[in-house]
Each structure stands twice: as structure tokens, then as C-alpha cells.
């Protein structure tokens, strides 16, 4: 039986660099040219099967727009195993923002977090403002993974997620923070209580223990 491991992946980056589009391409292989700012799609999962048969399940957290006014909650970073920090290759300012997010991750997230820097909109290379050399050099200095992607054409998208999956520890049980992980019983042990499981099992006339 192949083993399945679950990991929390968080997305970060300036508004409109294509964070949600990248995930939509990865999870559903779709693209929407006129996608509105993120609404209602903030908890997606997708699995990647590695060469040895290990199934890596990503539980993907989108910012839900809370990054716009610096209002991401500490909860967002909590127990994240990996982060994809996105910039737009046609906007040099977006790389600066990405650097800020990476600093924030290094401050707030678990030190063992795997960070991938992702230059999106590679289909718009004609309007490129961020050179591959510049981004790659920065990624190397900070010990980040790096790739360019196009959520529109799909170029590089599944590759970067697969590369992350390969880099994640396959031995240690990852965190099982999120409810979905606990409910499906996928990975890790939940020592806590599950509110959902027992919701209907209790009537108000339970025998009293006193």
C-alpha cells in the first residue's frame, strides 16, 4: 500500500500576481482570464504521486484577499509545511513584495518551511521586467526553490508543485492541523477532540455522571 502524506501549503504574493490562478491551474487545470479577486475558494486540495508511489496531498490555503491591507492572520502561517511566494515577471515591484513576504515567512513560519519563489505570467515574456537571472540569484541566496510559471498556459505549474512534493519530508508525520486532515484521517495523529464527529451523537439527556 502506498503511503499518503498531507501538507499545508500557503500562497503569498502581491495582489493580482496570479496566486489563485496558479492554484486553479494546478487543482482543476483551468484558467479564467477575468478572474475577480479571490472569493469563496480558499481551501483546495490536490495530490501529487511521487515516483516511489508516495502520495503527497497538498492542502492549499489561499490568502482570501487578506494580504491586501497587511491583515493576514498568524493562523495563516501556522504549521505551514510549504509556501509558494508568487511574483509577476512583468512587474518588478512584485518581486520586491515577494521579498517582503519571504522575510515575513522567515519571521513567522516554522523554520523548516520549504519556500518556492514563483515568477508567474511567463506567457507575457515580451513585457518582462524581472530577469530570470535576478530572481534565480536571489532564490539561491535565500535557499529557496525557484521557477517561472504561466497559470494561463499551464507551463511549469505542475512541475513546481511536484518539485515541492519531492522536497517535503516523507518520513516525519506532517502536521495535521487543519480539520480536513483530521476528519479524513489522512495523516498524522489528532490528539485533540473532533467537534464534527460527535455533534450528533449527544442528546441533551445524557446520563449524568455525578
Amino acid at each position, binding site marked *: 500500500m502506498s503511503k499518503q502524506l498531507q501538507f499545508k501549503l500557503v500562497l503569498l504574493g502581491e495582489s493580482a500576481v496570479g496566486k489563485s490562478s496558479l492554484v486553479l491551474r494546478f*487543482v*482543476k487545470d483551468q484558467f479564467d482570464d477575468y478572474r475577480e479577486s*479571490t*472569493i*469563496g*475558494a*480558499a*481551501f*483546495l*486540495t490536490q495530490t501529487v504521486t511521487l515516483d516511489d508511489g508516495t502520495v503527497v496531498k497538498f492542502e492549499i490555503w489561499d490568502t*482570501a*484577499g*487578506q494580504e*491586501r*491591507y*497587511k*491583515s493576514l*492572520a*498568524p*493562523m*495563516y502561517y*501556522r504549521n505551514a509545511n510549504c509556501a509558494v511566494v508568487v511574483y509577476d515577471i512583468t512587474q518588478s515591484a512584485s518581486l520586491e513584495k515577494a521579498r517582503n513576504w519571504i522575510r515575513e515567512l522567515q519571521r*513567522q513560519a516554522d523554520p523548516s518551511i520549504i519556500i518556492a519563489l514563483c515568477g508567474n505570467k511567463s506567457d507575457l515574456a515580451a513585457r518582462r521586467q524581472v530577469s530570470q537571472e535576478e530572481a534565480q540569484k536571489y532564490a539561491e541566496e535565500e535557499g529557496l526553490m525557484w521557477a517561472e510559471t504561466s497559470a494561463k498556459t499551464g507551463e511549469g505549474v505542475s512541475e513546481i508543485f511536484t518539485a515541492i512534493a519531492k522536497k517535503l519530508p516523507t518520513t516525519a508525520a506532517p502536521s495535521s*492541523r*487543519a*480539520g*480536513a486532515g*483530521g476528519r479524513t484521517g489522512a495523516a498524522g495523529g*489528532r*490528539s*485533540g*477532540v473532533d*467537534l*464534527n464527529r*460527535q*455533534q450528533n451523537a*449527544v*442528546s*441533551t*439527556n*445524557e*446520563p*449524568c*455522571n*455525578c
Partner: protein
Amino acid sequence: MDEEYDVVVLGTGLTECILSGLLSVEGKKVLHMDRNDYYGGDSASLNLTQLYRKFRPDQAPPAELGRDRDYAVDLVPKFIIASGELTKILVHTDVTRYLEFKQIAGSFVYREGKISKVPSTEMEAVRSPLMGLFEKRRAKKFFEFLQGWKDEDPATHQGVDLDKDSMKSVYEKFGLEPGTQDFIGHAMALYLDDDYITKPARPAYDRIVLYTSSMARYGKSPYIYPLYGLGELPQSFARLSAIYGGTYMLDKSIDEIVTDADGKVVGVRSGTETVKAKQVIGDPSYFGAGNSGGGKVHVVEEGKVIRAICILKHPIPGTEDSDSVQIIIPQNQVGRKNDIYIAMVSSTHNVCAKDVHVAIVSTIVETDKPEQEIAPGLQLLGPIYDKFVDVTPLYTPTSDGKADNIYITRSYDATSHFETVVEDVQDVWKRVVGKDLVLKKREVEVEQ
């Protein structure tokens, strides 16, 4: 910021965050702002830096307390009662996917100078020193009566009318001693004072049933607690709101609640920017509480609560080294009108460094020397490494918002759980939306 919102919410305390989450799910366009750079308002959990900044701005946290990020110290000492209304909201809104809960390990009650565990199993009840043998038999009959009660079956009523007869008369019917009445009314029904005794027994009955069904649900105590502190609760509802289109702005000064000639709210000003709003909801601190806003005062003080956050380097003596407890000191036991509560959590709940325990001692203030009032609670803790004392006024709004479309939430009270917070949510919701809050299970969005 020149947009128009259906609702602008001020302050990211739990009450406001539940409201903005539910309003966003309902399809309202919500803008949620907070003057602080962190979530949670008065119901936040703070790391060490934030804690010291709040209570001792001139002092840095001592290095021996460990890493700043390991701390999430609650400002309000409350637990979630397992079968209560907050649990229902957590489950129905599905924010449980962002949270993880653990039980509170035990509930203790103070009696005649020492603390005893509130029995959670029949074995514990038999061994409990809280009652003598004959009193245990009488109490057993009393609880059997409560559990057997069916509104539609007069045979189960044993001549009692819960809606007319006082709780006093019910206690007397079963011949329960004053100490047992204290235990039932304060450690189980969780009344803070003795006013309930002369009132009809129904609410007390409901509260005892809530307690016993919560106790039965997970086994050790009637309470559960979110890992990483209570501050996770507002964050999870804020995320729910954001997913449904809510806009969040922290670290934003709120300078004016803008009203028209009739006094109706039209917007909120922050610096030179003004957002338009049809309705404004906020916590008391944005509406003149303590005159912090400088604008019109919409709230009135209804008493004060003292809370002492105590850092301990050991579990509380006499609690079987529990990693988390509630201790209730019933008012009669220490000659007071209001109970003293102790709520203690530890690194088991990811709220502090290993081997540290954080206990909050609290009560409703009765005198002009509030710190002396909590002394019986502090004495139970053993050596206290450090202590942060706060005397907080409890504010309540002066109007219902119908005239000005301004809806103000209440301060976090001295009760040990969140049931009154949910009552406030339901009350504000009804006035803002115009109908009762009905919880619908929202569609599950986990996609495979």
C-alpha cells in the same frame, strides 16, 4: 477606500468576527477594521512582546520565559463549553477546519479551604469528598429527577413546575445542604452569584443540563479549548468572512463615525479617507468607551471585572498536576457576592513555553480594592512568577441601533464560557439583519 459597504465592522474581537463572518456568508459586503495590528481586540491572545507592550511598555520580556512566538496569552479567561452555542456555530460555519481543540483536563471547586475535583465519572463521584454519604444519595435523586424530566410527561415532574417554582424550593424538595447548593449552582450551573435561587428553576435546569451533557461529551471536563489560544477563534471567523468577500484592514485608526443631519450613520473616517456604510457594528471601544474615541458616547459602564494573568512555573497545587483547569471559588465560601474564577492553560495547548502555566484569576469587582478581592484565588496558585493585573469596565450599548444604524457589541463578561457572547451575536444579528439568526450548514468546499 472610497467604496460603499453594506456593513463596516470595527474591532476584531470574537463577537465582531463571528458577525462579519456570518454577514459575509449571507452576501453582505463587509469591511472589517481594527486599530490594532493584531486580530482579536479585547479577546485576543498575545505573544510576549505584545503582552509586555500592553501592560509594561517600558520593559522587555525576560529571556528566561523563552521564545516570543511560543506564547499566546489570552486576555479574557474563557473556555468553550462543549455542548454550547459557540460549538454549534463553529461546526455549522465549518471554521473547525482552521482550528484544533483539546479538552480542559479538569474542573475544580473550592470548599472549606481546599479544592476538589468536580466529579466527571461515577467512580469519581463515589470517592468525592465534596459530599457525605447521605448527601450523595440525596444529590443522586436530585440529578435523576433532572435527567428524567420531560416537559410533556407530568409523571416526571414530581409535582415541580420549573417555570413557577424557585430553584430554592427544588433544592429543599430534595433536602440538599447549602454546600451542595453552592456546588450545583456555581460549579455546574455556573452562576456567578446567588440571584438565581429565588427565581423560577427553568434556567438553572437548562444550565445544569448543558453542563452535564458537555461533561459527558468528551469525558474530563465540560470544556474544550483551541490550540494556540482563544485568539484563534476570531481569526478563523475573519478568514470565513474574507473567503466570502469581506475586506480586512488592521492597524487602521478609526477617527470618526460619520453621521448625517438625522444622526444616521453614513460612514467611517480613517485619517483623510472616509468609507460609506449603510450600517456600522463595533465593540464599545470605538464608541466612546473610556472616552477613547473622543466622539459621541454610545455606551454605559455596567460594572468592572478584575483579571490577573499569572505566569506560573508549575501546575496549580492540588489539581493532580493537570495541564489545564478551571477552579471555581463560590462566593459564599469566601464571603463575597460574586464567584472568583481561575482558568489555567499550558504548553499542552500551545499557548506558552514548556513547563510554564498561565492562570487567569478573575471576578466581578465589588470594592475599591479589587486586587485584594482576588487574593483567595491567587493564594491557590503557589509561587507566581509574574502577574499582569487589569481592571476592565464592562460596557453595554445605550441604544439598539434602530435610530442611527450603529450597533454596538458588549464587553466580554466574567462568565467562564462564550454563551453570553453568542447571545450578543444573536441579538446584534437580529437588529442588523431584521430576522433571527438561523444556522445553515454551508457547502463544503474541500475539493478532491
